[in-house]
């Protein structure tokens, strides 16, 4: 019994130092914001950014993401809850905030200083055909939808 336990230990005993952002669990938000792209983890932007984005879904980066007003209000609450500066922002939120000026309201995760710092990649990486755009996290981070951005 002890020997089996010891072997099991060996299997799980690799230090897990993955970078983690809590994924959205609210089913409505996950469905509505996970349709055209993966449902980005709210911790990547502060609440003021999400508010601004939710206030103008008709022009959502050149796309139309209009939602019924009651749905939008609910989603706005969910996003604020886990936003970088929200109560559930966690360590990822802290990292984002620490590199954000107070007068900045970025709408793109991919334009935050914290993102740019981690993504000084060669141009050829961004040009890979399956990447399409910087915001296509899943193309490079297989587990992005689960909020796990372990660098490998």
């Amino acid at each position: 019994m002890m020997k089996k336990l010891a072997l099991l230990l060996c299997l799980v005993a690799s230090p897990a130092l993955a970078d983690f952002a809590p994924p959205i669990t609210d089913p409505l938000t996950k469905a509505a914001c996970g349709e055209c792209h993966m449902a980005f983890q709210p911790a990547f932007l502060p609440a003021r950014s999400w508010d601004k984005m939710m206030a103008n879904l008709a022009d959502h980066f050149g796309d139309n993401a209009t939602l019924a007003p009651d749905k939008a209000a609910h989603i706005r609450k969910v996003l604020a809850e886990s936003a970088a500066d929200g109560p559930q922002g966690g360590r990822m939120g802290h990292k984002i905030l620490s590199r954000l000026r107070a007068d900045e309201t970025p709408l793109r995760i991919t334009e935050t200083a914290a993102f740019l710092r981690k993504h000084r990649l060669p141009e050829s990486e961004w040009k890979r055909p399956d990447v399409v755009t910087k915001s296509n996290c899943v193309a490079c981070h297989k587990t992005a939808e689960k909020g796990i951005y372990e660098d490998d």
Partner: protein
Amino acid sequence: MSPRVEFTLLRLWHAALAGGFVVAYVTADEDTYAMHVFSGYWVLCALTLRLALALIGSSSGPLRLPRPKFTWAKPGRNPLFAWMAALLLPALALGALTGVIADGVPVAEDLHEAIAEAGLWLVIAHGLIIAWIFQGRRIREFLTGAAALLAVGLISLPAWAADPAIAAAYGKEAGETLSAARGEALYLSKNTASADFASCSTCHTPDPRAAGRHAKTGRVIEPMAASANAKRFTDAAKVEERFTRDCQTVLGRACTAREKGDYLTFLMMK
């Protein structure tokens, strides 16, 4: 050294130590004695190496061996890490050293065994603490996610395949017979309202039975044909929501009820 390199070194070292310890533990019987001695020395070497790594690591990097504290300066590393290192490293070193002694002086065997046993419990505790620190939240998140998914799945289970009533309702609203041919023409039509999305097939691909790709976000879109995707057109509200958006985007106007009905008819026959 960059933190990245330091973490890699730390991981390699950790694998070497954990591997050596486990091998030593499972080969403790008499008949595998040679392997046991070898892995015991291996552990000893790994522990010595750890001290050397601490010397060459940067002053605030992961290779440093900080003095354990009772306070936690947030943000910062959980103080439990320092405590685990402070307990585990000496305990394993003691186990390995008493092993070397027991090799020559058999009376030390009992002591060696007791220390090694205690070491295993420390390692187990170490594993549980790490699991708790790193995985606890993820496991909770996974469980709530799975529960939510299951609930959603159960609720929508009865309506799994495309619902012909959705197209029929558009047909009734239009007061006309629906046509798959007109639907196909709409699906493939090239328009000028949007520079990025000339056609429905820009994202949904010209072959509705194949998976498409959102032309801007890169996200995969499951096939549109009902025959190729059992989840298509099952929820009238979702269908209407997407028509509202996608027609506006591609055509620069809303689709008429007839167009919507035609479009669905085409995709349900495909």
